[in-house]
């Protein structure tokens, strides 16, 4: 990259983010987060379709971070547990442990139809149940997979930004 193009990139950075309008009027978040939401994501057995949509939601086009949402590595730092996929037998205990490791006030967001009622994996041999069967779910985002705009709108409703 030449110096000239480097300076150009710094002074006039490209902006690909979609403008998503004003804050939506969604049902009240389970807790008042004052505009800041840290999320810990756990894949309890999904096909990774929902993960791709989450990645897209945090990528430059939909940019969930501008509304005060951030993904964190440790459940101790998180307010919300974002669970995708049906809960497999091996992931049931780790999911419970992850929720136990989160400080109050905390809540659980289940993402996608599989998280809600196992979707296409209902009755499969490795599946323990839906997320609601293992932990108590507070917010649900429907879709298979849910579009990034839907995910971002739900998160905006939680932060209020």
């Amino acid at each position: 990259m030449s110096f000239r193009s480097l300076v150009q990139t710094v002074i006039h950075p490209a902006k690909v983010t979609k403008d998503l309008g004003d804050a939506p009027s969604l049902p009240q978040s389970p807790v008042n987060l004052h505009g800041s939401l840290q999320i810990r994501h756990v894949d309890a057995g999904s096909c990774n379709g929902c993960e791709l949509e989450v990645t897209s939601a945090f990528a430059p086009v939909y940019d969930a971070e501008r509304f005060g949402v951030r993904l964190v590595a440790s459940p101790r730092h998180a307010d919300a547990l974002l669970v995708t996929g049906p809960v497999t037998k091996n992931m049931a205990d780790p999911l419970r442990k992850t929720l136990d490791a989160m400080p109050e006030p905390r809540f659980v967001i289940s993402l996608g139809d599989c998280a809600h009622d196992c979707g296409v994996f209902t009755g499969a041999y490795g599946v323990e149940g839906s997320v609601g069967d293992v932990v108590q779910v507070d917010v649900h985002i429907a879709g298979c997979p849910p579009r990034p705009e839907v995910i971002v709108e739900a998160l905006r409703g939680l932060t209020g930004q």
Partner: protein
Amino acid sequence: MNEVCVVTVGLAGVVAALLGGALPASSRVVAAVTFTWVSCAAALWAAVSVLSSDHVIALSSTAILPLTGVTVVLNPLGALFVVAIAVVAMASTLYWLGYASHGLATRSASSALPLFVTSMLLVPFAASVATFLVLWEMMALTSLVLVLTDQSRREAARSAAQWYAVMTHAGAAAILLALVLLSAHSGGQTFADIEAHARHLSGALRGTIFVIALLGFGSKAGAVPLHVWLPKAHAEAPGPASALMSGAMVNLGIYGILLVGNELLGGGPVWWWLLVSVLGVVSALYGALYAATSSDLKRLLAYSTADNMGLVMIAIGASGLFAASGHPMTAAVAMVAALLLMLNHSVFKGALFLAAGAVQVATGTRDLDRLGGLMRRMPVTGAVFLVGALSVAALPPFNGFVGEWLLFQGLLHGLPTSNTSVVISVSVAVAALALTGGLTVAAFVKATGIGFLGRPRSNEATDAHEVAITMRLGAGALAVLCLVLGLVPMLVLPAIERAAAGAGRINATSATRGWISLHLLGLRGVLAPSLLAGGMALAALAVIAVRRLAHHRRSWPAVNPVEPWGSGRKVQTARMQYTATSFAEPLQRVFDDVIRPSRDLDVSHLVESRYYIERIAYRTSNDDVIERQFYRPFIAGVRWWGQRARWFQNGSVHRYLAYGFVALVIVLVVVA
């Protein structure tokens, strides 16, 4: 009065030793400790009176040592060392009261320890060659007894005692040679006589004497490459003995260097101090590196002793260099820094070794990889070790910081000079100081964190509980002293300045001033340790208040104890934590070429097929590289030579008679 004190020091020590050897088990330690305390108190009284006024105590007698007599003089420099030794000795003997139920209660130990303390206290008093050597030898022998006692069944302890015995006597031989050369050319064996005649000696002779004395005393102080005995002996000695050896005995090596270099020989050319600085730099770097990569708690502390003594030697060397290049003020600051570093080291290293001894008593192991979780089980010992570790790492508000700061100020103000050798050596010294500082911090975070924090890594650590009250008091007293000296170093600075004046032949009576803040006179440098500490304390209280307020009116408990977060895995054991070896691994990788750890990988296969592995054994050890590369080949060479020489001793009486006849003929020819 002072003369009575001096006599009491020796007398009480002898009484303590006799009682320790004669009384039955129930009372021997208490009696020995009581009289040792009397001895220490008398020594402290004499030393403080010398340090607070300008007079000097002098005594002599021909009654004790028949051929040569005993001459005793206490000047301010010696008095400072006496204070350092007495403080550590009082704390260690108090600790010994509680330790006695775990060891060191035999007749030999109970008579050797008081004699050890007394001989260390009296060495700075010695003012003639014979007195000095007798006391030095007594110190060496009694400490050897202490290393061997109670553990003579362990191979490592026996080997350590052997190394210690040989090297301390080699050092004593060098000291003997230097002192005898001095007295032979001075016509008398008292130090006063030697001082008077020293300036008439030729430059080459003075240089030779200094180098020999430096090697002998340097070995005692733990100067690399003559330090090899130190990690072995200090690690194997039982608790109070290792505290005394590391906190008090190594100081006498420094005392000896100052004695010969400055008092007896009256100062010397620049290359002497250059040599001292170089030894100091090498010791500091080597000691800090091995402390950072060691996983044996007491070996780590012993290497740290070598590191700190290296720092003291850097300061002494810098002081001599500055004085020789015409900067008396920075020379004064550097010498004050050296003596303050020495005093601080005694206090915090004594505390650390006493705490390590308590850990060894409570868990039965020194291996950091098997410790952990001791801060909850042994709160006082853990707190003492934490204070000691923060002091070694030179962190405010503890005492190590003030000494390092003074040394930095001395080097910084002395560096802009036109003398090239000074510039180069001081620059190297600064770089070395900075690197050892960083390595020491890493070493002691490792020692405290892996040894005391987290979860216990073995059953012994899980079952540990706090030690006896006297052990806690002894170690705790030194830890409190670390804090006090860190907050108010002005308590000891006037005394140190008086001692520095005697040590460096420089007018150092006004190098520092002030009560709340420390001002360097003639140089621009100010430090206010108590204000800094006060500020930090206030800020900490404010932060804690904010944290409490944040919890106000919440529905959950203030602090919730939970399982640690381990990525949700099913089983979390204490073995999954970092060990001391893994903690130091990145540093060890950086310095791999220096340490050259020996690695052994042993793969054994199943009998049926070479494709299936039955067992893998991996062993790595950080042997002392100087010991491995230099000492062991030397010992092997000596052994080979000894084997060859057995040819002479083949048992034939005729051959022995022939040897005698030939020798007689040669002597007659030479004499004729």
